[in-house]
């Protein structure tokens, strides 16, 4: 049961859920949730390849750095959201389209 196929399937499901959340939601924080899902999917992929492909620890390192980067990304992203909220009193993503016109 535990093999590369199932792991890829799970990470695929995570990724698709992430994409769905990212595109369907109009709330910036919800979009960030979707991004976290996608990052998790990729990190899971790296770990799975490590286990089922070559048992080289590099995959774990990659996953670790994905987690690190994801945390940093979440911190900065949420900081931007909060600043945006202070300015616009909204966290609707389409309110951030001020570049238009």
């Amino acid at each position, binding site marked *: 049961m535990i093999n590369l196929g199932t792991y890829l399937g799970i990470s695929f499901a995570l990724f698709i859920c992430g994409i769905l959340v990212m*595109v369907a939601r109009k709330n910036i924080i919800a979009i960030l949730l979707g991004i976290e899902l996608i990052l998790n999917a990729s990190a899971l992929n790296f770990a799975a390849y490590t286990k089922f*492909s*070559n048992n*080289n620890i590099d*995959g774990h390192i*990659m996953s670790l750095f994905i987690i690190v980067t994801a945390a940093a990304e979440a911190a900065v992203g949420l900081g931007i959201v909060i600043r945006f909220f202070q300015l616009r009193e909204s966290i609707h993503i389409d309110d*951030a389209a001020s*570049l*238009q*016109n």
Partner: protein
Amino acid sequence: MDYTFWTIAPIVLLPFFAFVINAFIVKKFTKLAVGISTGAIFVSFLYALRIFLDFMNVYSVGYHIHKVFSWFNLSSGTQLFEVKMGIYIDNMTSVMLLMVTGAATIIHVFSTWYMHDDPRFGRFFVYMSLFTSAMLGLVLSDNLLSVFIFWELMGFCSYSLIGFYYEKEGAGNASMKAFMTTRVGDVFFLLGILAIWAVVGNVSFVDIYNAIASGKFNNLSITVFSMGIPVATLAAFSIFMGTMGKSAQVPLQVWLPDAMWGPTPCSALIHAATMVAAGVYLSLRMYPLMELGHLTTFIAYVGAITAFGAATIALIQTDIKAVLAYSTISQLGYMVIGIGVGSYNASFMHLITHAVFKACLFLSAGSVIHSIHCQEMPQMGGLRKKLPYTFFAMLLCCFAIAGVPFFSGFVSKDRILGDALVLAVGNPVYIPVAILGFGGALLTAFYMFRMLFLTFFGEPRDHHIYDHAHEEHLGWNSNIPLLILSVFTLGLFYSGSFTGQGEVNLFGSKNEWFSTLIHKPDAASLHHFAEYKSEDLGVVDTRDKLELPKAEFDENHGMNEEEAHHVHQIHHFGALMSVFIAFAGIFLAYSMYIKKTINPDWWAQSFAGWRRALQGKYYFDDLYIGKIIQKGLIPFNNFLAWFDMGIYDKYGIDGWEAVNRFAFNVSRWFDNTIIDSAMVDGTGWSVRAMNTVLRWVQSGKIQLYFMVLVFVLAGYVWKLNF
């Protein structure tokens, strides 16, 4: 010399460490930060010099050092997925290293004078160090992926430095413009890397050469809209788009003039000597791919249009830095022509010589600007006596860029033009390239000397500014760099001989080192690379692996006697023409601005239409910012741009007399009917009409962009058929 990690890596790491250290101490210890930056780049120059001398010592064509290490490895069994990074040094790299570190050192020293009263003195050096290390990293990279990483890093530094005076609104906008415009090219570059990866399974230069030599690219094509596009063409075009963005080729040239908002030393280093040349460097590295993709004609045309178009715009600029900026675009165009017409080593030589004289020109302009706090040439004049060293340096550089014999620009540009001429004789497709090239050379000589005369000769036009110019403002650290650089504008350094044999003549010496060492990677030399694969980790020093004969100068460039004779004749003719054109341009400028026998105003009035186009910089900025970015009116404005360029350019190239009168009438009619009534009103109407259709494309909704991104990537991945 023994090549280990510690003899190569410090070149990159020293400036990088300087950046890291300076980024943290910069606030309080500005002097220290400056010292660290300058010292680091100087030491790294010494390292580069050491490598260069070693390569000159070996003096062989195929000699290269390749050090590979594994970045990460997820391969198993037959499925290979290993990403490797590495250092690759061959003759070209060693020359490039010397140029970059040398220019950077000199410009750093100059900056200590130029920037010393700036409140953000230290921060400037932080960026400069990061930039230098990125550029050196790019030069040392052995694969496209790390090239791309450093490429983007340089883009970031360029962005930061253009926006260095961020209090000024223009600087902020300019930095954003530069970033966005080059991004267009970079996306293509990334796609090109993907395409190469899909075919080769790796992006190391060596493996790419290997794949080309072993025919991996043959018969591979992608079907788009039922048209078969060879992968080689697609990849080559994508990568060349990267070059177009970085090296400011038409139509992505618009950012470079605006980049002059940055401090002048950074313009000298980034937007003249190194970063913009990196695009050309990339195309040179990928030359076999360009050839395989049958892209050379396209490249030659892009280069020719850029070289000539930018030169025409430079004719009417009054800002001293703007002249230099357009001149840079134009000279980059010459390098690209060189790639297009197969003039590999001349193109590279022009890269080097241009870096030297353009850096010197920028530094001279910088010292002029800093002495009189003004950039407008009409307010200068007669500064020759006030700034003698600057004048001397600028004079030499103007000789070089105009192509006066015995100066570096002549040596390199003449060869590019000569090769273009050779091709044009054999193949009428290349005739416009040659014509535009020579026309551009004439204009170059003219506008450079126009700049020189307006700045340094004649009577001072603004006495307030003139009286304020003080030579004593200048210090050793402003003059010495200029003088060093101006010495290196002599052609002898490039066309001389390292072995001490051979006579020096007008066209360089026999046995010159540059053409001897740097060769187009043709089919024969690509097979050098088949000797080993980049799978071997560790240092590959080809001195041990291959039998390396001393390189010898081949006067016939691999052709038989008869062909060579024919080519030589054309070259000689081209050279004579270059000399003639250079002096014609200088004479024209002389008679217009010193003798005043020709009245510039008369010319301006007779070519009013053209002049308007030039003042609008061929409307590229309007096109991009006014239409595409805001309204998404791509097809309509392409048409407009084509119309402007096609009509005006054609008339410019035709005979003087007929065009003169005809252009006058046409442009008057054009103004009244087409532009005023049809275009201005029509633009408004059609904008409104198309707005409704195209508005949703630029909705500013990031999720829509994301969807499009997913679709495009999906299509690309699907096509590449992993």
